[in-house]
């Protein structure tokens, strides 16, 4: 039966199949193609931003190296941070996974506004070009946070940084609106809120954060840009402005952004665990509602980044207490995941390995986060390598391990082919060990007082830094295994079939890769998705696709 003959009212989002190459692969309206476009673009930016990190580590192999000049070193860490946050982690977790998986999981044929989705993607590559192109005009040197007054004194590259991040901010706002409307309005019949897969919960909360917080970032960036370009005084203390004001408006966005970068990874973990433990997720509602409470709390903690910026004591105390509150919903998630694994017959496949990596490193980063939330500790550790170690444990150990868990998990759905498990495991162990070898020692040199964002250091830290740099090079190389595995899978990967892992969410109930309209008939959802041991909770699904896993 063709989709057009269904006679069902839910045909509103059907756009005609593309007839030209450009419509199919370039200006595509299909959420699955757009998802892959995000993956490829972010992947390229990931390589560039990763190379910048390796250059920084090359400079830091010895205390007085001259691999990079001091100014170039500043540019490298500023662009590395900005690119990893805005061009890699956020677009992959929202644009890529959200587009590729969320509409499939709610049983929709596309997102609510396919055309806006395309526009939103096409703001992203120009943003990346502006950001990396800023090297030609004197790249920003004040770190990814671009605090004034330094950011007001730098050459044109910093204005390009403003434009790039503004563009990516608008794109992310549009995507957020699009996704939240899709989730609220387009779930398959019978999919009540508490029958939604947990990745959809996470994507929904992230979408909400995206269009609220990111709008505020756009305003802050517009202010910085017009101050730099027209001399309009907002942040310059010499003209009556306030540099601390920038910190307020910037962190009012950027703390929610931390959760934009971690909530979808939480969602991925919540999908992978039940599949490979073959049992219902423990505490479904607790996990779902803790995502919501993390999202709301994230708006009330921004000033914990500013404990050394001259806040009042009562403000410091309030932000410390609110920040520590976030450990409660996060802890609820961690314990629910552990309880899901407790006593289960665990299938130790590559996605689950990355989830286990996520759980150990993210929990560690979460604990150093609670330490840093405490005002007296933070005043001591502020702007040292301890902070660098903490943020890489949550953003690399958390988000990046989550991203790879999701990539290994949904690769068969995306491409229709399997990745090689042995190479995947090799990738995991190399990445996990070299990650910890890179970032764990940074805690120690940070506690000793080595400042971050400086191109040189006291010779007493030399041996640790050399060890860190060598580990960082190995960490960089570990991604080559993934690249090789991906290329190999395209050429000679085993055909995956609709449901290689035995998942029970809706994306596994259709062929791989998903057909153009996703679902011939919109499925009807009868209960929640994780009830292993019970019959599948769907009607209108072809029975031959819903059978047991092959792998």
């Amino acid at each position: 039966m063709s989709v057009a003959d269904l006679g069902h009212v839910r045909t509103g989002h059907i756009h005609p199949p593309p007839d030209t190459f450009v419509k199919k692969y370039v200006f595509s309206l299909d959420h699955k193609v757009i998802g892959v476009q995000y993956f490829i673009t972010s992947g390229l930016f990931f390589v560039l931003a990763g190379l910048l990190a390796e250059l920084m580590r090359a400079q830091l192999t010895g205390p007085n190296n001259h691999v990079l000049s001091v100014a170039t070193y500043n540019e490298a860490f500023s662009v590395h941070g900005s690119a990893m946050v805005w061009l890699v982690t956020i677009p992959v977790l929202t644009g890529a996974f959200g587009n590729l998986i969320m509409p499939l999981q709610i049983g929709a044929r596309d997102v609510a506004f396919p055309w806006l989705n395309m526009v939103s993607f096409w703001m992203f590559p120009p943003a990346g070009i502006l950001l990396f192109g800023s090297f030609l005009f004197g790249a920003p040197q004040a770190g990814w946070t671009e605090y004034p007054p330094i950011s007001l004194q730098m050459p044109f590259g910093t204005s390009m940084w403003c434009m790039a991040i503004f563009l990516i901010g608008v794109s992310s706002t549009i995507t957020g609106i699009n996704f939240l409307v899709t989730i609220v309005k387009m779930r398959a019949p019978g999919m009540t809120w508490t029958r939604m897969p947990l990745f959809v919960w996470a994507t929904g909360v992230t979408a909400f954060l995206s269009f609220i917080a990111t709008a505020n970032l756009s305003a802050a960036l517009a202010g910085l840009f017009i101050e730099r370009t027209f001399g309009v005084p907002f942040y310059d203390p010499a003209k009556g402005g306030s540099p601390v004001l920038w910190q307020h408006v910037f962190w009012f966005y950027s703390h929610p952004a931390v959760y934009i970068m971690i909530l979808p990874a939480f969602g991925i973990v919540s999908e992978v665990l039940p599949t490979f433990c073959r049992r219902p997720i423990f505490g479904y509602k607790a996990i779902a509602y803790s995502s919501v409470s993390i999202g709301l709390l994230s708006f009330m903690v921004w000033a914990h980044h500013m404990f050394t910026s001259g806040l009042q004591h009562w403000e410091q105390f309030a932000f410390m207490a609110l920040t520590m509150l976030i450990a409660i919903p996060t802890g609820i998630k961690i314990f629910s995941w552990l309880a899901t694994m407790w006593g289960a017959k665990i299938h130790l496949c590559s996605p689950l390995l990355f989830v286990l990596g996520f759980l150990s490193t993210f929990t560690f980063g979460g604990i150093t986060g609670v330490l840093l939330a405490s005002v007296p500790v933070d005043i001591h550790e502020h702007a040292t390598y301890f902070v660098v170690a903490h943020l890489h444990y949550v953003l690399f150990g958390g988000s990046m391990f989550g991203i790879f868990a999701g990539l290994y998990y949904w690769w068969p759905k995306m491409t229709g082919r399997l990745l090689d498990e042995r190479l995947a495991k090799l990738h995991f162990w190399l990445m996990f060990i070299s990650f910890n070898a890179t970032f764990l020692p940074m805690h120690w040199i940070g506690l000793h007082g080595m400042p971050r964002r400086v191109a040189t250091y006291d010779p007493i830290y030399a041996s640790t830094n050399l060890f860190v740099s060598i580990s960082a090079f190995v960490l960089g190389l570990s991604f080559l295994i993934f690249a090789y595995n991906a290329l190999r899978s395209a050429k000679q990967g085993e055909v995956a079939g609709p449901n290689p892992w035995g998942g029970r969410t809706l994306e596994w109930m259709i062929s791989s890769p998903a057909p153009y309209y996703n679902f011939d008939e919109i499925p009807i959802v009868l209960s929640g998705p994780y009830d292993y041991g019970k019959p599948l909770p769907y009607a209108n699904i072809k029975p031959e696709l819903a059978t047991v896993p092959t792998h």
Partner: protein
Amino acid sequence: MASHAATADDALYTEVAGQRLLGFLFFLISDCVIFGSFIFVYLYIRNASPVWPPAGVERPGLYLAAVNSIVLFGSGATMHYAMEAIRRANVRRFTAFTVATIILGCMFLSGQAYEYTHLHDTWAGSTFGASFFTLTGMHGFHVFIGVIFLITVLVQTLRGTYTPMRHFGLTAATLYWHFVDVIWVALFFLFYVY
């Protein structure tokens, strides 16, 4: 069966319009955040400054702004009556009220242009000017977009695009216009009264 087909079609329109309405509301919320962010900036700088307005800066006069506010709020009322008219399929009444709204919007913009050209302070001149021109300028730009929006839906209505049942474009335009009104309440209070 024509009548049956029309029903399914109506249901589809309602569903799509519902999605667009929610999306448009989310857009307005994020727009509110942008204004809110700049209002926070204004209040922060004002609070940190020992004297306000900063020395040598003259605040814009209340009377012109008050007249302009009445013009803008009046346009909110005419917009409301225009929507009432389209619900009763009275296109002529709708046209009259929409044209009135557009004229009032243009009057507001002219008033703002007059105010801008007669102020001594400039955008880059002081911290007051920075926030004043940024916020009222953003608002004026929104009014300008709103006028274009209204002209577009008026032309569409005269061509018969909208019916009493199907007028999402008109709903969006009305919401947008009222939103711009509400933002002005905050700006008027902040810059002319407070």
